[in-house]
């Protein structure tokens, strides 16, 4: 799949023009298509709620209140957003280089392991130094996990889609194994590690909310990746390699090295997502801590047109959906599975719209499998 930036609309050349032209440009823009997919999914979601016997307007009110209604709600929304945004940034930097990294889920599992090890095993006297050490360690573990599929691809021609998917499950079961065995405190029956040292904990930003300093890290990474993509030689090369590997090769770009570097960044950022979730929310390594954050991230990256800014906007929406469905569950006892439906539907719609445009000769996404 080769993404194209949203500004690059097919009608961009015909600047000015009549009202009809303007309408055409708006409806042809990526942002409009994304909005449409969300709107249609939202309508379907409200229909599902209606079939569950809930007044849709009431449900919508509860959701919006649960997502943005109070300081605590906004804090929750942003706390839900944080790991998802990092996972999304991880996915997009790899895909922009033409490497289909579907392995953010596994990489963030490794990131969580990498963060918990120093945070529980190093002497607590290190104090707040433990926090950066744990985050870096998490990023390194994630990068290591991301490196394996690239090496398998370059060395054995392995299909990265399948390999990264397999490695997700290996990562998930590795966490399961660690919390039932080596990392489980003596005498404990719970499938979780010991609590991390106080110094490693990401501080809460606003008292009374769950919003932790990880959100700042996520936003910094978003800006850094934007700068890297659009304001560095490496970024240009990376995008060329993603759009047309052939051009990159003809230009004498080191294609293998580009893919390896982009995957190291990707795995590292995904690892940070896991680390942040452990250090800011869970304070332990817990079996099943992720609840498919990695796949959410992938969805966000795709819906955000593989742009860092797009990812930030869509990630806020996903955070709101998460905290909104929590509110729905607690006040109207609506199953939280609704959030999954609201995640999956817009991706399918958007992919269909892009596919249809491709069919009509206006390629926006096309596969480079």
């Amino acid at each position: 799949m080769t993404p194209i930036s949203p500004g690059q609309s097919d009608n961009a050349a015909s600047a000015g023009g009549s009202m009809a032209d303007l309408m055409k440009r708006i409806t042809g823009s990526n942002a409009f298509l994304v909005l449409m997919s969300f709107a249609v999914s939202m309508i379907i979601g409200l229909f599902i709620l209606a079939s569950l016997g809930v007044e849709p307007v009431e449900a919508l009110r509860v959701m919006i209140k649960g997502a943005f209604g109070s300081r605590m709600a906004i804090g929750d929304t942003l706390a839900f957003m944080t790991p998802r945004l990092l996972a999304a940034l991880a996915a997009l930097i790899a895909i922009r280089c033409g490497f289909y990294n579907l392995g953010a889920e596994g990489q963030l599992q490794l990131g969580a392991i990498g963060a918990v090890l120093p945070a529980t095993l190093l002497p607590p006297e290190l104090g707040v130094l433990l926090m950066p050490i744990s985050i870096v360690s998490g990023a390194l573990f994630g990068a290591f996990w991301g490196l394996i599929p690239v090496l398998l691809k370059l060395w054995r021609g392995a299909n990265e889609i399948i390999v990264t998917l397999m490695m997700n499950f290996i990562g998930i079961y590795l966490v399961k194994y660690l919390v039932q065995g080596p990392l489980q405190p003596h005498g404990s029956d719970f499938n979780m590690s010991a609590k991390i040292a106080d110094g490693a904990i990401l501080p809460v930003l606003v008292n009374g909310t769950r919003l932790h300093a990880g959100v700042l890290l996520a936003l910094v990474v978003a800006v850094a990746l934007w700068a890297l993509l659009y304001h560095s030689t490496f970024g240009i090369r990376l995008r060329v390699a993603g759009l047309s590997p052939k051009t990159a090769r003809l230009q004498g770009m080191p294609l293998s090295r580009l893919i390896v570097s982009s995957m190291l960044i990707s795995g590292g950022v995904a690892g940070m997502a896991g680390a942040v979730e452990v250090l800011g929310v869970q304070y332990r390594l817990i079996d099943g801590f992720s609840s498919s954050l990695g796949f959410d991230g992938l969805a966000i990256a795709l819906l955000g047109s593989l742009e860092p800014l797009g990812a930030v906007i869509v990630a806020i929406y996903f955070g709101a959906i998460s905290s909104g469905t929590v509110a729905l569950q607690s006040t109207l006892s609506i199953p939280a599975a609704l959030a999954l439906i609201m995640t999956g539907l817009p991706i399918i719609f958007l992919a269909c719209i892009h596919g249809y445009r491709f069919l009509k000769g206006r390629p926006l996404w096309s596969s480079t499998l």
Partner: protein
Amino acid sequence: MVFDPITISLLLAAAIRLGAPMLLASLGELVSERTGVLNIGLEGIMLFGAFGAVFGLQLTGMPYAAVAFGALWGMLAVGVVAIAVASLRADQIVVGIGFNILALGATSLLRDMVLSPAFQSPSLRNVSSYRIPYFSELPIVGRAVFSQSPILYGAVIVAILFWIFFRHTRLGLIFRAVGEGASAADAAGISVTNIRFSAMLVTGIMTGIAGAYLTLVASGGVFVDNITGGRGYLAVAVVIFGRWHPIWVMLASILFGAADALQYQGQAIGLSISPPLLLMSPFLLALIAWVLVGKSKTGPSEIGIPFLRGQK
């Protein structure tokens, strides 16, 4: 480790029993991939099939009707993916990922809404096994191989039929042609869309039955959230491991089934490995398979590429 005939027989039986859903799903996926569609959505389709089967069991009380329900739900699920992928030319990976997330949510919601509690907790209803006369009396392999669910025997027959279909029939050749060179097939007057759509329908039916098998035979007629647990993704890997050949896919499925079976039978043969590591083993096996199979792949050359007339 203990190796006596009974435990080996039990292990083999479990390997085949747990390999069967993988076999059914990967045979289905094989047909799609031969025509150039990489169906990552297999996981979600299997989930819908699994739910459909248990729902069917609740409605009718008849195991075979439940299997038919599973097949039907699999077909409906794949219909959604096929409209997106084959008709609208949506990106196959993106749709697959979205569909799997959707399926996880939808089946969980449906379970909550329509399944009675009896079908959400273990029970004994399932599709009974059929002992093939004479063969099932053989030592060791008798009980293991010739005393399984009839669905499994059906799958083996389908594998052989697929092998004949792709190797010796004109339509099989057309299917392969679409996967190897869609433009050339189109120029020869073949409708790429129709071929891919029908291939995906076959995939849906097979994968739906795989989901039915998973719930009705392997877990006693119960549906729990995410019951497939990555088996759909594994089935995609099995197809590649089996090099797009039905017979190899069959053997690979049993190998993956054996890795799956170790978590239940491992204790019996004195294997003291932690359960999560055993659960991990099929995925690890898939990864190792890549190192072994490597670049010598003989897969369809246009796999994953949407077809557009007049574009090369």
